[in-house]
């Protein structure tokens, strides 16, 4: 039942090139534009069919803006978003709204907040069935059959068809949200922090479900998250952002074991681990995350970087492939040897 039938795993499904999204800063009575917040400033990456790319970073890094641009919930200020489906490639960044509607069914979203993402005035059956209804499945019985199928897929009892969202726990609501996203057999799922609002004991259930669904349906995930331990469990590759720019992209295992960018190193080191005493060797970054409305010159990370040299203050690094599959945007990427995290046996 996967929509990816007949297409090869591993080929590029989404190519984001030099994506920009600037928000104007307006001041005064006449709302004159006095500056730009460069929320996303020249971001490039690709996602391969059937893989999970995790987009990580802290607040204000632009990861959510990137995901909204890909879904065209926001109109990009520049760059290209090439989406390949059914052997044809289209640029979503410049597409008109009317044409977008046909492509949207191949690309769906799982939201962070399981409470606000479900309409409290519709029953579960209507919520999951809505994309089907909109896209032409007007036969009630046929729709009900498909919704029941989807509910089984996400392990929700079909008896809950007529229940309202308020009767469900956070984890169950997130299952409903996933079933709705799967209704149209999409190829790409953009999951925006899908487990960060859930209790610890429920997080694991949803993460496992997402992995199982990917194996069964050949889905491709863009997994937006801030929690590196969650990312380690679900992703094939990781892309790290800092203040609107991509700082590092790499295979998950390689990136965690040997980060190439000082920011990735600090991020890994700051992630709390459930091992008493592990914190003693932590790298604690100084100062605050840079303001995207007024980023520092050169490398935006240099004021917090332990390895910064004079060149970092003036020269803006570009993302380059320093090893096959490993992209870094750091002037000293080739000379630094940074510390990662050990893997459990």
């Amino acid at each position, binding site marked *: 039942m996967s929509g990816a039938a007949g297409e090869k795993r591993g080929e590029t499904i989404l190519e984001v090139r030099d994506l920009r999204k600037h928000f104007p800063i307006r001041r005064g009575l006449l709302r004159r534009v006095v500056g730009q917040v460069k929320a996303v400033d020249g971001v490039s990456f690709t996602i391969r069919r059937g893989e999970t790319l995790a987009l990580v970073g802290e607040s204000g890094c632009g990861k959510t803006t990137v995901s909204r641009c890909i879904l065209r919930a926001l109109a990009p200020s520049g760059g290209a978003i090439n989406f390949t489906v059914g052997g044809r490639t289209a640029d979503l960044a410049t597409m008109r709204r009317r044409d977008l509607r046909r492509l949207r069914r191949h690309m769906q979203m799982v939201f*962070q907040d399981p409470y606000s993402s479900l*309409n*409290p005035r519709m029953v579960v059956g209507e919520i999951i069935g809505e994309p089907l209804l*909109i896209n032409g499945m007007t036969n009630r019985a046929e729709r009900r059959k498909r919704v029941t199928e989807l509910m089984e897929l996400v392990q929700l009892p079909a008896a*809950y068809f007529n229940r309202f969202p308020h*009767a469900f726990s956070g984890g169950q609501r997130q299952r409903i949200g996933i079933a*709705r996203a799967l209704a149209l057999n999409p190829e790409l799922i953009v999951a925006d922090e899908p487990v960060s609002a859930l209790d610890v004991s429920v997080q694991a259930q949803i993460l496992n479900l997402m992995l199982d669904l990917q194996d069964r349906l050949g889905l491709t995930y863009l997994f937006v998250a801030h929690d590196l331990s969650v990312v380690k469990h679900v992703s094939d590759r990781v892309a790290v952002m800092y203040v609107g720019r991509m700082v590092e992209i790499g295979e998950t295992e390689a990136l965690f074991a040997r980060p190439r960018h000082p920011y990735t190193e600090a991020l890994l080191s700051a992630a709390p681990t459930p091992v008493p005493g592990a914190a003693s060797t932590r790298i604690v970054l100084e100062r605050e995350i840079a303001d995207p409305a007024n980023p520092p010159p050169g490398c935006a990370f240099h004021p917090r970087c332990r390895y910064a040299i004079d060149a970092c203050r003036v020269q803006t690094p570009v993302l380059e492939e320093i090893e096959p599959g490993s992209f870094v945007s750091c002037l000293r990427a080739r000379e630094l040897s940074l510390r990662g995290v050990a893997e459990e046996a």
Partner: protein
Amino acid sequence: MATPTDADKFAVATQLQLTWWRFRRHKLAMVSLVVVVLFYLVALGADFLATSDPHASDARTSYIAPQPIHFFDDGAFRPFVYGIKGVRDVKTFKLVYTVDTGRKVHLELFGRGYTWSFLGLFETDIHLLGLRDAQRGDGIFLLGTDQLGRDLWSRLMVATRVSLTIGLVGVTVSLFLGVLLGGISAVYGGVVDTVIQRLIEVIRSMPTIPLWLGLAAALPNDWSVMQIYFAITVIISLLAWTDLARVVRGKFLSLREEDFVMAAELAGASQGRIIFRHMLPSFASHIIAAVSLALPAMIISETSLSFLGLGLRPPAISWGILLQDAQNIQTLALAPWLLVSAIPVIVVILAFNFLGDGLRDAADPYG
């Protein structure tokens, strides 16, 4: 939710049911709901509850004080009131009418009185209370009479109908304007939004009383009671829609940011479906609450306009017109019972406000 059946009931309960369950716990609001319903029942059956023709004046019954109903006659349950008799004043030689405690007039249920029509459907002369073997001038003056000898109780019943419906009609008009303009403002945004918002600000900044004065003064003198009734309604609602428009616009804007609206958009839903299937049902309850808070403002507006002599004019009867009679301090000294008309105004305004508060609290079961 103690038993599984309760939990199941809760699980398939609609938002309306949840709102009702929550509203039911709000005791003051429940009482207010009952009061408001009672008032509208009175409005519906005003003529049935009236005991004598509210328009019929009779010099003999001028300024009769409120008369109680005596329930027991010679130890048996036979309710009666006393009749009216004329007495020659020994100093002025004027004929003065007073209560004649020597003559009992018995009451009957569903007695006959003046002819009235129920919503224009049928005509009847049956009233809740009637008098048996009444002579000219006799009547059940529960709340006394005014200068022209008209029974205040009967007039109050009919006034309730006028004052309460003028609020309903007014709110309907301003609700239509508010939802339309507030919705347009939120959906289109940009210049349209700015223009509508500035318009709202201009209207809200105008002092209401002089504006009403101007508009009401512009009404032609020869208009019928009905025409003036509608004109006043329109005038009041033209100024009252701004609050509703703001509520609608604010709700629209906040709902547009909700994830479930974005999910519908991603599923390919049209603008119309998003507005009518997802957004409108979500704030219907807020609108109901806003309406129940707007109604008392309407009623007050009509009452003050009529009180100042700018709204409805006699022979129409409304609370404001009844209170107009109580404007004169000398009249009040002579007939203090004329102030009774203020009581329903106070009660209904309070009830509407409590009801609105209760509805607002209950509207968002998770808010």
